[in-house]
């Protein structure tokens, strides 16, 4: 090793040490935990190595419910939030007056605390002794009967969950997409105008391909973010997500570690690894699709 690369390694050393200590080692530990069968938290002992933790987790109805919830959340919120964000960005990009004001308004949820937003949603949706919640008041005003969004049917709860998630992730996407749209060279649009290109064709043939790298970025990070959802659920349904039937995979991992039924790091590790494999697979597929398109 010559002097120069030695120097380089020296500069990298602090980062390598910290990452190794606080990232790589725990990751390896998670893998080890996940294959230790019958691990006892108190005595720190286990029977042996095997796949039992995985098969237990995969048969646990709570885990399956969590996977189902997470998948529904991902499938609904990622395309919807990206699509709506694109529409709003297009609108923002084509108006002149009050553009800054609208941009600020749309960006507000991003700087608002998750739990504070959760509180707002409680006011919107929660049934109490005094009121059915704002949304129910509207439903009643239109002649419908009120629905219990927080403790009622699964579909209603899922609706609130998706609505909340979309609302929370939207500002960042709008921010990214408006700047992506603004960075498209206006000459392309002028050239298209001279050639008499219809608005729809300009959008599909010019705008979309131009900002597609940004859209792919948002879809990939959106998938990852939605798979890791947890705090938003707690903000709306409280900490006992299993009994509310609204748990997510990350929530399941947390419960296995620290929840009422906590103290099972092996199950938690197995569930975390399963989540990792799911996210890895989807990200790889995303990358492959985006590569082929280009």
């Amino acid at each position, binding site marked *: 090793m010559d002097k120069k690369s030695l120097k380089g390694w020296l500069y990298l050393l602090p980062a390598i040490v910290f990452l190794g200590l606080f990232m790589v080692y725990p990751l390896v530990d998670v893998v080890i935990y996940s294959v230790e069968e019958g691990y006892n938290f108190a005595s720190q002992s286990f029977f042996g190595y095997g796949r039992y933790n995985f098969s237990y987790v995969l048969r646990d109805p709570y885990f399956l419910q969590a996977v189902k919830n997470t998948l529904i959340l991902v499938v609904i919120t990622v395309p919807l939030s990206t699509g709506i964000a694109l529409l709003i960005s297009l609108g923002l990009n084509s108006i002149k007056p009050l553009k800054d004001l609208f941009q600020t308004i749309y960006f507000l949820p991003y700087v608002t605390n998750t739990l504070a937003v959760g509180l707002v949603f409680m006011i919107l949706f929660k049934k109490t002794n005094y009121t059915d919640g704002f949304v129910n008041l509207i439903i009643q005003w239109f002649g419908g009967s009120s629905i219990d969004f927080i403790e009622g049917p699964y579909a209603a709860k899922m609706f609130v969950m998706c609505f909340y998630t979309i609302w929370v992730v939207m500002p960042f996407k709008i921010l990214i997409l408006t700047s992506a749209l603004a960075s498209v060279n206006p*000459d392309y649009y002028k*050239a298209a*105008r*001279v050639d*008499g*290109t219809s608005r729809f064709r300009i959008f599909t043939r010019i705008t979309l*391909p131009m900002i597609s790298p940004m859209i792919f970025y948002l879809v990939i990070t959106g998938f990852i973010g939605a798979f890791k959802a947890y705090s938003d659920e707690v903000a709306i349904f409280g900490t006992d997500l299993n009994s509310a039937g609204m748990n997510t995979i990350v929530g399941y991992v947390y419960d296995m570690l620290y929840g009422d039924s906590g103290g099972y790091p092996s199950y938690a590790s197995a569930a975390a690894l399963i989540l990792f494999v799911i996210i890895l697979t989807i990200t790889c597929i995303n990358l492959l699709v985006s590569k082929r398109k280009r």
Partner: protein
Amino acid sequence: MKIVLENLTKRYPNRNKKIKEDVIAVNNFNFEIPDGKLIGLLGPSGCGKSTTLNMICGLEKPTSGRIFFGEDDVTALPPENRGVGMVFQSYALYPHLTVLENIMFPLQNFKGKDKLSKTEMTERSKKAAALVQIDMLLDRKPSELSGGQQQRVAIARALVKMPRVLLLDEPLSNLDARLRLQTREEIRRIQRETGITTVFVTHDQEEAMSISDMIVVMEAGVVQQIGKPQEVYDDPVNLFVAKFLGTPPINIFDGTIRQNKLYIGEEAVLDVFPEKNETEVCVGIRPEGFMIQEGGPLSCQLSSVEVMGRDTSVVASHSACTQPAFRAIVSSEGAASLGTGKIGFALKPAKVHLFSRQDGSRIRFTVK
């Protein structure tokens, strides 16, 4: 298709909101562009030449005035209904489409009875590509092409829908010097072959002079002079036009006219009979207007001699010259024996122009 511009004016509100007065980008532009000619709009940046081009294209609406293509008033028409092809300074080639797809793009916009079949579109695109000689690059992406090739693709895309008018915005500014020379010949050839009335914008006078049938010199939104390149060069209407055309530029001296003699400094250099009685004038002398003559009427201090083969460029200084040094181009034979120190010049009257010191307007004169 001839293009008629009638009292064309464009005003913008001032960017600085405190100034109420509008910015006048183009002021009362009148010009009839003859059919099938190549016209160069020439001027320094900010003179309104691109705005004029955009108004002809339809991307900008004139504040007042009218534009005719042939007999049709197109002032209110959007660009797509005018039948114009436009080549942008940045070329604006769609980076995700291949060369063929780029050229085909305008054809795919046709609707209704104009709609073309896929084979027709491909055929016409290939024909346009062949015209600009890029038919072997059809499957490439724009990023895989050189600047000159991208330029050709942009021209092919503008030509493929067979426009009545072709507009080029600074077509050569993104090319290196050698390619620029080649491409401007290419533009000339394509224009001749298609016979489409073509307007192009440039700030490079050499570019405009070399290929245009006519040039329009603009400054601050006002047309200064319109004419054939050689005519404008030989007979500029004012000091601005004289200074703007020609490399090396015209040399300006402070002069006076007394008793029908033109004085530069204390020396009488020419006998002149001016049309106007003005004593204080600017004297513009083209570099090729100097002749080396021992004891010639204009004596100057020689600074250096640059040999360029056929010609020799003599750099000298004179106290009445507005620049610290001026440049004369003489044939190499006469310059061989140049030493240092004083040098005398005689002047060719046709290459000497007089301008008013007040407003820069031309003062014509006869020699005898």
